[in-house]
């Protein structure tokens, strides 16, 4: 029964819906049209249009605006102001009328409204047809709130008629069919319905329960999801990579968080796609250690951490800290490893940098050629830090001074300098400026060292004022400075020119001596090239010499140089390379002496020597000519003298008839003078030979004692003429190698000289002897003797003693010269012992040389 009523109701509902559905659809269309119109008009309407009824021109404009809209279906438009006044309509009669504000306000607030009515419900003219009107808000600008409302009237008949005619018969047929169907199926339906109802009821109960359960589950799941999301969000926002790894395979991840990409450039997908990639990217130096640590950690189910390097995709190595926890299942069995990787590269790098900077600091401090310190500003200079170099300086280790453990630093400062050091430092602290001071320190070995200290007071981290500084040993530098000053003084005071130049030949020093020598002051030449000192045309020579000195280390030479006033001077230069401690030539020094005068003297001497040599040559030539002349003359004299003597002999022998006594006397004078002449010629010839170096000995075995005896016998008649006692004393003399004739000539000379210069009644003693390889012959006379001043000339040719000349004793002055030559030719010597008025003794010494077989042979032939 209910269902029949329900069915009838449903039929009525369908009918109503069908009709209403049509109306509804029309209203929608009108509203849509109104909205479109409103949107189209928005740009052409003004806010002022809604303030009050449109008048005059504006109304005409609006007519033109709205005209296209009135197309037969749309029959009227109205613009409503916010206060409910109709400000415009295509029917002018309604403009200015006012209606309920509430409706307009609602539309202005955003609601849309449509209604079915008649055209002239709110006044107006024309046929009062049924219309469908729609209200839409109007905006003059897209974003501004609506300023008014547009109402659009369309004919209702047309829009609703189609729908009604189509729907009505179908709806009626449908209702009838339903009634028929219901009537036939009612009994079955009723059973089924009741069964269904029961079932439905049960199902409803189950469904309610299920729904309850599902709701609970959903809530729980949502909670879980939220927690998970929160967790993931947290995990993914943490600046670390979390991962899960299986226990049996360390490094083989089963999960890894997305930050991995930030860390090493691999996405989790890439990472998980390559099992074991971990061992590819870990630094080879770290791999083994990390593997051991992981295995140990897993085995002990520990929580542990380790650090190692991983190579990012970019190739860069990144230091990570890996914190690992072994997760156990509820049964307490190790299940998996969960870890976090944190980028600690920066920390590591700063650790390394710190280490490096510490090492560098230590290295620097160690290498500083001085002592570095930090100390308190007190009378002990209590050391907080003192570098080890202090030991070189004072002989005590730096640890002695730290906190005055063994001694204070003040104790090694020279007592005379302690107060000044305190004053200097105190002043610096007050002025807050760095200080430099010098003082002496006492070395353990008793020596005194000179130091320079530089420092500054600084506010240490603990808020106390400390002194930071460095101490430098300048003892050697002081000594070097002193040496340098001394040397500089020596150089400056030297008369010699001392200068130096760099490797390019630019003068770098110039002493007073150089100023005097060259006429330039130091200011004029320093920085100039040494070429300026050379005369024109030799400008490149000094630089060549300089290069030579650089190459060889030292050069001495003489050169011509030009003074400032243009005069040329001769100098002797010693150029030396100056080397640095590494042996590199860095400069050149030169010492110059003015040798102009010496040069002149040398030149003079040279010229003189040349002249002498020339003269000498000329003299030698003259001498040679003289010798030749003498030889020629002597030879040419001999032949005529031979004739003279030969024919005299013939006459005196009576070959030309008897000779009277007087004739014989006269011819005797001729013969004697001819003999003198011959003697002179012979002597001259002999001397000429000697001087020409042509004297050769006819060497044979000579018995000098016998030769002496012969000479004595030859001279005896002469001695007897002058009643002179002539004696001979000989001891055996061994045969010696010599020229018998020459030796006889020698002794004849000596004996005849002795007789010649001995007055009547005097005596001449001749002795021959031999001793220790020498043969001696001595001829002593009791003559007038030879004055001491004449003795040294006695063996010179043509020399005659003053006494010989005075007393007109005959002689050529050649005898002793010849004698000496003969003695020398035999390797012996002849000496004279005499004093005036006491006679003279000539002593001949000849070495006894055995005769050589060849010489013997010649001698034999000759004899």
């Amino acid at each position, binding site marked *: 029964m209910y269902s029949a009523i329900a069915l009838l109701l449903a039929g009525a509902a369908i009918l109503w819906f069908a009709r209403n559905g049509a109306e509804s659809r029309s209203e929608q269309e009108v509203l849509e049209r109104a909205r479109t119109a409103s949107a189209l008009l928005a740009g052409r309407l003004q806010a002022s249009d809604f303030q009050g009824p449109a008048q005059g021109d504006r109304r005409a404009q609006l007519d033109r605006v709205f005209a296209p809209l009135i197309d037969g279906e749309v029959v009227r438009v109205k613009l409503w102001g916010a206060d409910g006044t109709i400000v415009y309509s295509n029917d002018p009669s309604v403009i200015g009328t006012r209606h309920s504000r509430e409706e307009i306000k609602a539309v202005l607030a955003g609601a849309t409204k449509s209604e079915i009515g008649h055209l002239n419900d709110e006044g107006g003219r024309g046929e009062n047809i049924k219309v469908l009107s729609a209200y839409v808000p109007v905006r003059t600008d897209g974003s501004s709130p609506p300023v008014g409302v547009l109402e659009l009237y369309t004919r209702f008949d047309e829009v609703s008629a189609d729908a009604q005619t189509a729907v009505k018969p179908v709806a009626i047929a449908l209702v009838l069919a339903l009634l028929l169907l219901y009537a036939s199926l009612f009994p079955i339906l009723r059973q089924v319905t009741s069964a269904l109802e029961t079932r439905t009821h049960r199902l409803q109960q189950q469904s309610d329960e299920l729904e309850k359960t599902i709701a609970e589950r959903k809530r729980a799941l949502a909670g879980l999801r939220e927690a998970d999301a929160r967790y993931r969000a947290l995990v993914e926002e943490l600046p670390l990579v979390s991962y899960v790894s299986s226990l049996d395979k360390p490094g083989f991840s089963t999960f890894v968080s997305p930050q991995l990409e930030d860390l090493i450039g691999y996405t989790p997908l890439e990472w998980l796609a390559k099992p074991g990639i971990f061992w590819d990217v870990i630094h080879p130096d770290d791999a083994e250690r990390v593997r051991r640590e992981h295995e140990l950690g897993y085995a002990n189910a520990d929580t542990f951490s380790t650090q190692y390097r991983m190579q990012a995709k970019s190739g860069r190595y990144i230091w990570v800290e890996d914190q690992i926890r072994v997760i156990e299942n509820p049964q307490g069995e190790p299940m998996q490893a969960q870890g976090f990787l944190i980028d600690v590269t920066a920390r590591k790098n700063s650790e390394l940098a710190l280490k490096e900077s510490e090492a560098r600091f230590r290295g620097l401090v160690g290498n500083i050629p001085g002592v570095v310190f930090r100390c308190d500003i007190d009378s002990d200079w209590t050391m907080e830090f003192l570098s080890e170099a202090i030991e070189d300086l004072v002989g005590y280790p730096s640890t002695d001074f730290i906190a005055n453990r063994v001694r204070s630093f003040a104790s090694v400062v020279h007592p005379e300098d302690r107060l000044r050091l305190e004053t200097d430092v105190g002043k610096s602290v007050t002025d807050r400026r760095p200080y430099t001071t010098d003082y002496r320190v006492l070395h353990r070995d008793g020596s005194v060292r000179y130091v320079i200290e530089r420092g500054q007071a600084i506010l240490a981290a603990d808020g106390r004022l400390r002194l930071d500084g460095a101490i430098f040993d300048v003892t050697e530098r002081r000594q070097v400075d002193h040496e340098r000053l001394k040397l500089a003084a020596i150089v400056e005071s030297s008369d010699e020119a001392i200068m130096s130049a760099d490797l390019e030949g630019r003068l770098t020093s110039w002493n007073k001596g150089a100023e005097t020598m060259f006429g330039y002051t130091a200011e004029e030449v320093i920085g100039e090239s040494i070429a300026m000192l050379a005369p024109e045309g030799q400008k490149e020579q000094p630089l060549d010499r300089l290069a030579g000195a650089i190459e060889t280390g030292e050069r001495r030479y003489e050169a011509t140089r030009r003074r400032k006033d243009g005069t040329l001077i001769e100098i002797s230069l010693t150029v030396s390379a100056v080397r640095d401690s590494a042996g590199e030539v860095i400069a050149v020094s030169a010492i110059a002496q003015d040798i102009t005068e010496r040069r002149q003297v040398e030149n003079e001497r040279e010229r003189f020597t040349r002249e002498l040599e020339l003269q000498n040559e000329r003299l030698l030539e003259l001498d040679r000519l003289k010798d030749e002349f003498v*030889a020629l003359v*002597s*030879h040419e004299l*001999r*032949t*005529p*003298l*031979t*004739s003279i*003597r*030969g*024919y005299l*002999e*013939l006459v005196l022998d009576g*070959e030309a008839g008897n000779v009277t006594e007087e004739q014989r006397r006269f011819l005797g004078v001729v013969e004697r003078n001819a003999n003198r002449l*011959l003697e002179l010629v*012979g002597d001259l*010839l*002999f001397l000429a*030979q000697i001087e020409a170096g*042509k004297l*050769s000995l*006819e060497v044979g075995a000579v018995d000098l004692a016998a030769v002496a005896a012969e000479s004595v016998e030859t001279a005896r008649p002469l001695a007897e003429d002058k009643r002179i006692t002539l004696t001979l004393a000989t001891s055996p003399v061994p045969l010696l190698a010599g020229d018998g*004739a020459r030796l006889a000539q020698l002794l004849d000379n000596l004996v005849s000289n002795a007789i010649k210069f001995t007055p009547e009644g005097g005596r001449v003693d001749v002795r021959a002897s031999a001793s220790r390889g020498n043969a001696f012959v001595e001829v002593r006379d009791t003559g007038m003797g030879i004055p001491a001043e004449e003795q040294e000339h006695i063996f010179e040719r043509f020399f005659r003693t003053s006494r010989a000349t005075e007393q007109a004793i005959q002689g050529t002055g050649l005898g002793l010269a010849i004698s000496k030559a003969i003695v020398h030719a035999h390797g012996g010597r002849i000496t004279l012992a005499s004093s005036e008025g006491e006679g003279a003794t000539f002593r001949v010494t000849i070495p006894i040389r055995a005769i050589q077989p060849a010489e013997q042979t*010649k001698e034999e*032939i*000759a004899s």
Partner: protein
Amino acid sequence: VSDRPLVLVADDDPDILNLVMLRLERDGYEVVGASDGEGALQQALERVPDLAVLDVSMPKLDGYEVAQRLRAHEGTREVPIIFLTARAQKSDGARGLEAGASDYVTKPFSTADLRLRVQAALGL
């Protein structure tokens, strides 16, 4: 042809030549003279002398050369020669001896000395 020994004397100085020839003639020798080496050689070859007294320094052929030529000829090979030399050096005399001289006399010589040497050379 006499039985007196024939002495050839050669000297370019006519005074010396005459002196020697005169002396030797007075001493009883047969003497022929020449004033140069060529002449001396010619004379010697025409008539072989018993002795030649030759001055060393002569024009054309000097004494040594004359001596060598004489020594080169069969007929004159055995003729004794005495050189007259004005050279001071005794080595000149030695050279003469080497050239085949029997003796030499140094100018200035005494005629007495020469006489003795001539006698010796002729083996008288």
